[in-house]
C-alpha cells in the first residue's frame, strides 16, 4: 500500500523522460540521422534505382543471382553465355547521378563509389580455363621423353 505512490511517481518520471528525448530528436533532425551517409552507402537505395533502370534496359536476367550485382544490358548476353561462378565477383554498373540527387536532396550528384560495367565472373572463368589449358600443356611437355632406348623392354 505504501509502495504504490512511489511506483506511480517513478513510472511518471520515466514517461516524462522518454517523451522528452523524442521531442529533442524531432527538434534536431539534421543531427540525428545521417541521410547523406545512408543514401550514399546504403546500396539498396541506389540499386533500387539501378535495378529499375536495369530492368527497363536489361535484355535478360543477371545470372549472378546476387542482389548486390547486376549486369548492364550489353553485358547480359555475355554473362548468360558463360558459365558463371559465384556471384561475389560480379559487379554491376551505372550510377545515375540524377537519381541519387533526387533520392537524397542536398547531397552532391557525384557519387563516391563509381560502379563499372565489368563482368568479373566471365573474366574469372576465362582465367580458370586458361589454367586448365596450361595444365594440359604441362602434361604434354612432360610426356616428351628422350631417355628411352631401343633396348627397352616393358
Amino acid at each position, binding site marked *: 500500500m505504501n509502495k504504490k505512490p512511489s511506483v506511480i511517481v517513478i513510472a511518471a518520471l520515466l514517461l516524462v523522460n522518454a517523451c522528452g528525448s523524442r521531442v529533442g530528436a524531432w527538434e534536431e533532425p539534421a543531427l540525428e540521422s545521417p541521410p547523406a551517409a545512408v543514401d550514399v552507402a546504403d546500396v539498396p537505395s541506389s540499386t533500387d534505382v539501378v535495378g529499375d533502370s536495369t530492368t527497363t534496359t536489361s535484355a535478360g536476367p543477371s545470372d549472378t543471382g546476387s542482389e548486390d550485382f547486376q549486369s548492364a544490358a550489353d553485358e547480359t548476353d555475355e554473362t548468360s553465355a558463360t558459365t558463371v561462378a559465384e556471384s561475389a565477383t560480379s559487379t554491376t554498373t551505372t550510377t545515375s547521378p540524377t537519381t541519387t540527387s533526387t533520392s537524397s536532396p542536398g547531397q552532391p550528384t557525384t557519387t563516391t563509389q563509381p560502379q*563499372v560495367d565489368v563482368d568479373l565472373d566471365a*573474366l574469372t572463368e576465362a582465367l580458370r580455363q*586458361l589454367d586448365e*589449358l596450361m595444365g594440359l*600443356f604441362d602434361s*604434354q*611437355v612432360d610426356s*616428351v621423353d628422350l631417355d628411352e*632406348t*631401343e633396348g627397352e623392354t616393358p
Partner: protein
Amino acid sequence: MKKTTIGLVAGLLLTLAVPAVAQTETPTTEQSAETEFAPESDRGHGVEALRRIVLHQIDHRLNRVDRLQQAVRNSDAITSGHAAHLTTDLNESEAGLRTLESLAGSATTVEQLRSIQKEMVEGHRIFVLRSPQTALVIASDLGVKLADRLENVAARLNEAADRAEEAGFDVTEVRALVDDGQALTAEALAIVDPVAESVLPLEPSDYPDPAKATLRAGRDSIHDGRQTYRSAADALRQAGQLLAEIVRS
C-alpha cells in the same frame, strides 16, 4: 658311419650340381639372345628363345605405335597437316613391324632373327624417334593453342580495363600487366611454334644424326616456351586480380 653318410650325401650333391653349372654356362649365348644383337648361335634351342624375344620386342613396339596413333587422334590441338604426317609415318611403322613379326614367326635361324631384330630397331626407331617426335609435335601445336587462349584473355582484360577507365578508375597497372602478358605470350609462341615443323621430317635413317640433336633442341624449346607461357599466364592472372580489386574498391 655318420661321416661316411655325410660324405656320400655331399658327393651326391656335388654330382648333381656340376651338370647344373654346366647348363647355366652354356646358355650364355642363349641368354645373350635376350639382349639386342647377341653373338651368333645356330642351336635350335637358341632360335626358339631368340624368336620369343624378338616377337616380344616387336609386340612392345606395336603397342607403342598404337598408343602414339591414339594420342594423335585424341589431340584436339594438333593441326590436320601434322596429324596426317604423323599418322602416315606411324602407319608405315605398324605395317613394317607386322611384316617383321611375320618373318620372325617363320625364321629358322638365329641369323635371320638377328637381321629381323636389327631392322626392327634401325628401320623404325620407335622409342628414340617416333615417340618423342609425336609428343613434341602435339606439344608444339598445343602451345599454339595456348597462345591463342592467352591472347583472348588479354583482349578481354583490356576491354574490361577500358570500361573501368571510362568509369574513372586508374587502370595503368592493369594495362601494364596485360601488356607484359601479351609480350610474353608472343615470345613463347615464337619459341614453341617452330618445333613441330623441325621434328616432323625426321626419319629412322636420320638417327642418331641429326635426329638426336634436333629432338633435343625441340625438347629444350618446348621447356623454355612452357616457362615463358607460365610467366604470361601469371601476368594476366595478376591483371585480373588487380582489376577486380579496383572495381570493387
